[in-house]
């Protein structure tokens, strides 16, 4: 089922490169290879033969073309120009995870078909991708291109209230480490339903604040926004909205943090007035809140602010779309009554309505739904999400899997077959064989299922 690179005929506006005329064309910037022994080589990748584990590389540091082996290659950055697409809607398919791995692939494109077995997305970078529906965790529809952040990759894009980032923060191994109390912030467009997650490591005890929806990245105490405060065994969330009374949202003891030196935080945000929001630490719900209209926040700054001088490490920072459904608690799962479920799939619309039915056809941006009340036609751009199968399934880990990170955020896992200056060819259990325009990706991680390379890739907890 080989897919060819198709001209994206159905996109409403043609694709355009995303760099300005005065900017240096990103192609001119070399790619950088990083190996597990910290070797770092810049240049232009000419080709990769995955089975042979060979990479032909043209580096200005090396004489002629070099044939490198990829056995200990951690990643290759790419600097091609992604295309900016303007479309009537943006569909985002979140793929089910690989065995015990927390990464979740996401594919964005234009929804062109949905049936019992498949979901078809039209993409500018790989033509039509027909996804096995049983391996898709969720499908969300947006009327703006969804925003993501995954990092930190370096100080670019971050600002520090103290002014000098290098004085107050160290960046290494996709981690940022505080040197002092001065906070660090970056602007990330937070979608209406968003998930902010990060890992924090500390040496003595946790004492920091995380701010979001802030209106001033240069101030550790901005005028508006949320502040999530962690101090040893206590966590609180404080909301300071414009023209609204300020709220103490959550005040909770987190005593299990006393002995820990690291924790994973996840903040689930539904900005609508009736939306439910939550904070989870290490997968456990600490608190929820609802009934606040967070669409009124205009700021998009996210801050990480240490509250003392003991170093704190922040990594795996991710801002992504959220399907609005909180992880089920064990007691909720027990309460579920299958007899109460209606036949069909749940389709949420932009106005908050929910339709239970099945998709009959998709034609020119219009979905025809079959419901118990008869057939209904809905423009895709007015849809928000389609609930998919809950059957337990997972994607296999393959030997030559690489993780390809999109410029727009998010990533996909592909069993790499080959790569040249224009195209990445690979296979996925989700969509079969496909060819990807290499300009879609900002970097490619290699050897992703080799845990012995994780320390070199992510750093160790003792690496301060």
């Amino acid at each position, binding site marked *: 089922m080989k897919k060819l690179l198709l001209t994206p005929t159905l996109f409403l506006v043609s694709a355009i490169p995303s760099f300005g005329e005065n900017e240096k064309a990103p192609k001119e910037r070399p790619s950088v290879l990083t190996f597990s022994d910290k070797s*770092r080589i810049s240049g232009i990748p000419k080709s990769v033969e995955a089975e042979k584990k060979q990479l032909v590389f043209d*580096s200005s540091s*090396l*004489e002629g073309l070099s*044939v490198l082996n990829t056995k200990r*290659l951690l990643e290759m950055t790419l600097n091609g120009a992604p295309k900016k697409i303007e479309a009537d809607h943006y569909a985002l398919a979140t793929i089910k995870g690989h065995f015990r791995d927390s990464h979740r692939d996401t594919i964005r494109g234009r929804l062109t078909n949905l049936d019992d077995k498949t979901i078809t997305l039209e993409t500018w970078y790989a033509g039509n991708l027909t996804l096995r529906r049983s391996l898709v965790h969720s499908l969300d529809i947006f009327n703006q291109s969804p925003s993501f952040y995954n990092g930190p990759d370096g100080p670019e894009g971050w600002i520090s209230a103290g002014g000098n980032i290098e004085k107050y923060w160290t960046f290494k191994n996709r981690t940022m480490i505080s040197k002092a109390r001065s906070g660090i912030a970056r602007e990330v467009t937070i979608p209406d339903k968003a998930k902010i997650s990060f890992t924090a490591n500390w040496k003595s005890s946790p004492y920091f604040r995380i701010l979001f929806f802030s209106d001033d990245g240069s101030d550790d105490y901005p005028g508006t926004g949320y502040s999530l405060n962690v101090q040893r065994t206590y966590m609180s969330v404080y909301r300071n909205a414009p023209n609204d009374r300020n709220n103490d949202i959550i005040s909770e003891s987190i005593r299990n943090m006393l002995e820990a030196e690291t924790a994973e935080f996840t903040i689930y945000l539904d900005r609508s007035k009736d939306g439910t929001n939550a904070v989870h630490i290490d997968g456990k719900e600490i608190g929820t809140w609802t009934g606040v209209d967070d669409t009124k926040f205009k700021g998009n700054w996210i801050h990480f602010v240490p509250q003392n001088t003991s*170093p704190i490490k922040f990594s795996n920072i991710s801002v992504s779309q959220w399907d609005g459904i909180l992880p089920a608690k064990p007691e909720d799962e027990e309460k579920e009554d299958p007899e109460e479920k209606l036949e069909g799939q749940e389709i949420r619309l932009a106005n908050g309505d929910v339709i239970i039915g099945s998709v009959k056809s998709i034609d020119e941006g219009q979905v025809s739904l079959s419901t118990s009340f008869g057939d209904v036609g809905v423009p895709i751009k007015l849809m928000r999400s389609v609930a998919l199968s809950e059957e337990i399934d997972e994607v296999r880990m393959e030997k030559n899997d690489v993780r390809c990170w999109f410029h727009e955020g998010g990533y996909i896992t592909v069993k790499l077959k080959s790569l040249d200056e224009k195209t990445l060819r690979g296979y996925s259990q989700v969509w079969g064989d496909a060819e990807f325009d290499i300009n879609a990706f900002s970097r490619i991680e290699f050897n992703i299922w080799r845990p012995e390379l994780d320390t070199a890739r992510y750093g160790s907890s003792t690496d*301060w």
Partner: protein
Amino acid sequence: MRTSLIAGLTMAFLSISQANDQISLKNGDLFFGKVIALKGGLIELQTPHSEAPLKILNKDLIKLNFSADYSEKETPDELPKNSQELYLRNGDSIPGEVVGLTPTHLSFQTWFAGLLEIPREQIDSVFFGVTPQRNIFRGPIGIEGWSQENNGRWRYEDGALTSRDKGFIGRDLKLPENFIFGAEISWESSPNIRIHLCTDGEKPQSDGTSNSYLLNLNSGGVQVRRVMPTGSSGPKFKTLITSTQAPGNKNSNTCQLELRVDRVSKILQLYLDGEKLGQGIDPTDSPKGSAILFESMSSGSSDNSIRNIIVNEWDTTTQLLRREPRAEDDLDTLSVDDGDRFSGKILSYSPAGPTKPFTVQTLLSPNPISIPLENCAVMYFTKGADIPKSKGQYHLALRTGGKLSLSGIQLGPNKLKAKHPWLGELEIDRVVMLSISKSE
């Protein structure tokens, strides 16, 4: 035969895989592996990332660090030692041994580059008693291996241990009986750091760091104190060396600290930025511990950092090293270990004699004076007509101390061939090489 061939190949592979030479280029590229050749503008590097050696263009070389893991020959700690170091007038320095002196040349024997015949006018000085000692520790290279108390105030960054809060970090460095501790201390606002040496453990005990030596550095000066064992009578501290010379200056927030500890003779010598501040005698039984602790006294507003920590074993010859300055430019000068200086013309050296004397014709005595080698501290040669400083294309740093300016470098498996601007063609044993960097 076949078995030995396989064993040999295995050993060769192991030696390659162990070697971790490091090449850094101006564009940020970084390579690790074994440098197998350097010639014709290329560095050939054997690396696990390529079957064929990578050919790295050295035009943008910043530095090439040679690994200490060099299994073919001695480990660096076992390299031959020389107690003399010769300084050329272009800034180069060479460890070796004076074996002859004529009116025009000095003969200097090195183990790594053979015998050098050096014109006197090219020589600035020869220091005696400069033995590079057996290295016990060189670092830090990370936070691993260091112990912190529960507050974890210290961090590792940019080759330094840094803290801006009060707190200890320590390590059992297996300090020998006699050792030289050296480190570069830097600070943001003012120095405020304590170094505890010869402690029993790498963490402070319940009674602090008793039974140790305490080196206290702050803006008021430097002090070395004996911290008495718990339970001993009398005061807890005995001051051994005190200096009110403030570390650093208005242009520099850094200083080089060196403490030499002879626990057998109970002698301690303190140096700040190469200058001897004083000597102290420990009137008690020396502490027996082998660990070291750094204690930041910063109150949370500014960093204190420690980098380039070097601990060497100290043998008695180094005690002779004195840093007497040059007396006169137009005369030779020979300083001896008791501080006397003899200026005039250093005529000759007789290595065959029982005391291996240098002969100096001074202005004060009609007859030449013979000075035994064992009393010599430093020898300066007349600064003659200015000769242009001459620098090569590269700097070679030597593992045993010393550095050379070189051009036309060709590196083979065992030898480096290069041209020194004054000394001509040299063949240098690869084992001695610490790093090669491009001259500015």
